[in-house]
């Protein structure tokens, strides 16, 4: 079943086109990511879907509701984490949970939630005293407080250190395992790759590609690179055998094979098999897999982080 259905969504601010005619669906129980650089239109798109912004054109159906005309009802059954929002500085963690719980008709018990999100010892801390990661965990708590089937997470881990980021990722995955559907935006390709079942890559307000991260990488990313060091030099017959697997580059005694893995051919395994079959001693074998970052580069010709 489709939880979100977006058809021909378009939103402009004056002359700037923030989102240009995008369409996609989000299936029940998946983590769907809108990824792309800052300014690609991700936040505008997600806020239109949440019912916080009015699109110029297009239809959006969320949990069977029209996100424009039923926005109040939608807000009572979805959980939303915003990119830029705050709580009053002097509000304590438990007070925020207690207050927001009172805004919903059948919220989950925040006393349980506070433990699940690792905020138990910050229960009486004021919002302004929390670290970035703790604030984000509190916002996730507020987003799941209404016990929603659908959770929106906008730039969840921006500004967090890697450790806090990984902790947040674990939390998001645990939401999916509870059967919740998640629509998120991120400009971290690594985050999208780690978390998302499917991603839509946004650039200049348009969807440049949409699929599972693996499929996108398979079909669009540059080549995989397998490198190793040969102290004794490259015998010509080995070079010939390796050149069947991919393009060969040399950096001193370092050999780099650039090629593509397919379903029945793993580049790294083939390189190793060829080397050991020829009885060649090698060391420091490394493989570099292509990432969504490479997919983006391939699609747009530029790096995601300028």
């Amino acid at each position, binding site marked *: 079943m489709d939880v979100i259905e977006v058809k021909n969504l378009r939103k402009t601010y004056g002359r700037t086109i923030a989102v240009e005619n995008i369409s996609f669906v989000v299936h029940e129980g998946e983590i769907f990511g809108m990824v792309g650089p800052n300014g690609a239109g991700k936040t505008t798109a997600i806020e239109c879907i*949440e019912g916080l912004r009015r699109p110029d054109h297009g239809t959006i159906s969320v949990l069977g509701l029209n996100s424009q005309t039923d926005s109040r009802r939608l807000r009572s059954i979805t959980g939303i984490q*915003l990119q*830029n929002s*705050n*709580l009053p500085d002097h*509000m304590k963690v438990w*007070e925020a949970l207690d207050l927001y719980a*009172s805004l919903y008709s059948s919220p989950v018990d925040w006393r349980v939630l506070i433990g699940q999100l690792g905020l138990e010892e910050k229960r009486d801390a004021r919002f302004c005293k929390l670290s970035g990661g703790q604030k984000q965990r509190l916002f996730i708590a507020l987003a799941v407080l*209404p016990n929603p089937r659908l959770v929106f997470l906008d730039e969840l881990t921006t500004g967090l250190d890697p450790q806090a980021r990984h902790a947040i990722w674990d939390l998001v995955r645990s939401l999916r395992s509870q059967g919740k559907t998640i629509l998120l935006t991120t400009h971290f390709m690594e985050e999208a790759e780690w978390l998302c079942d499917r991603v839509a890559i946004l650039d200049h307000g348009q969807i440049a590609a949409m699929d599972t991260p693996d499929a996108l990488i398979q079909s669009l990313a540059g080549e995989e690179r397998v490198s190793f060091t040969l102290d004794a030099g490259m015998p010509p017959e080995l070079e010939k055998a390796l050149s069947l697997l991919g393009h060969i580059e040399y950096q001193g005694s370092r050999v780099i094979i650039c090629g593509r893995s397919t379903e029945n051919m793993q580049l790294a395994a083939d390189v190793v098999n060829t080397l050991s079959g020829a009885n060649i001693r090698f060391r420091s074998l490394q493989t570099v897999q292509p990432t969504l970052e490479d997919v983006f580069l391939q699609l747009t010709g530029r790096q995601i982080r300028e």
Partner: protein
Amino acid sequence: MRGGPQMRRLYKMTWMECKLFLREPLGAFFTLIFPLMMLFLFGSIYGNAPSQYFNGRGTIDISIPAYTAMIIATSGLMSITITIAAYREKGILRRLRTTPISPFTILAAQVIVVFLMTLLGMILLIIAGKFVYHVHFEGNAFSVFGGFVLCSLSFFGLGFILAGIMPTARTAQIVGMVILYPMLFLSGAGFPRELLPETIRKVSAFLPLTYVVNLLRGLWIGEAWSAHLLDIGVMVGLLIFGVIVSIKTFRWE
């Protein structure tokens, strides 16, 4: 709790905002403490002996309604303005907007809390005046309370307008103060207008706070509402203007 979900939300929001107000030292100071300091300062200078300036009433007798006007102005132009502008700028309103709460509930909670704090400020003044300076109260308590409610809501409206039309919280705060401070001294709220020269008294006719001082001082000494039709008219006009403009200028972000 009875009264449906919106009432329960309003109650929760109001209680939360009450706690937040008292945790914010600046707002609590100007609403609750500073007027008492003024009272004790001028009380220690002039005492509350009957004075020819004030038709035989003492300085403190006429200062309590004037300082109440000062609290009303501070609440409207500082507490309301700063809170609403900062809530918008920091994204606190945005966060609330993602929930089913109605904007009316958010604003109502804010008005109730600031009103209660303003009322508390006045009560503290009356208690201090009664016990330390034995002030004379010649009016009707209900009548004074009615005037207090009208003037408070009118000035809160001004605060909402400022918060609505100023681009940032910082400018809203500065503009609020720039309007507030001269007005406190020229309207008779900070000290009796009888002490001001004639030319400056003419300026006060253009300041809305002057009408608050007139109305509250009048009701305090037992004058009838009918003797203050101009003051009431200005306040009612300001209130209507405030409600219309603040609805038109309210922004979530």
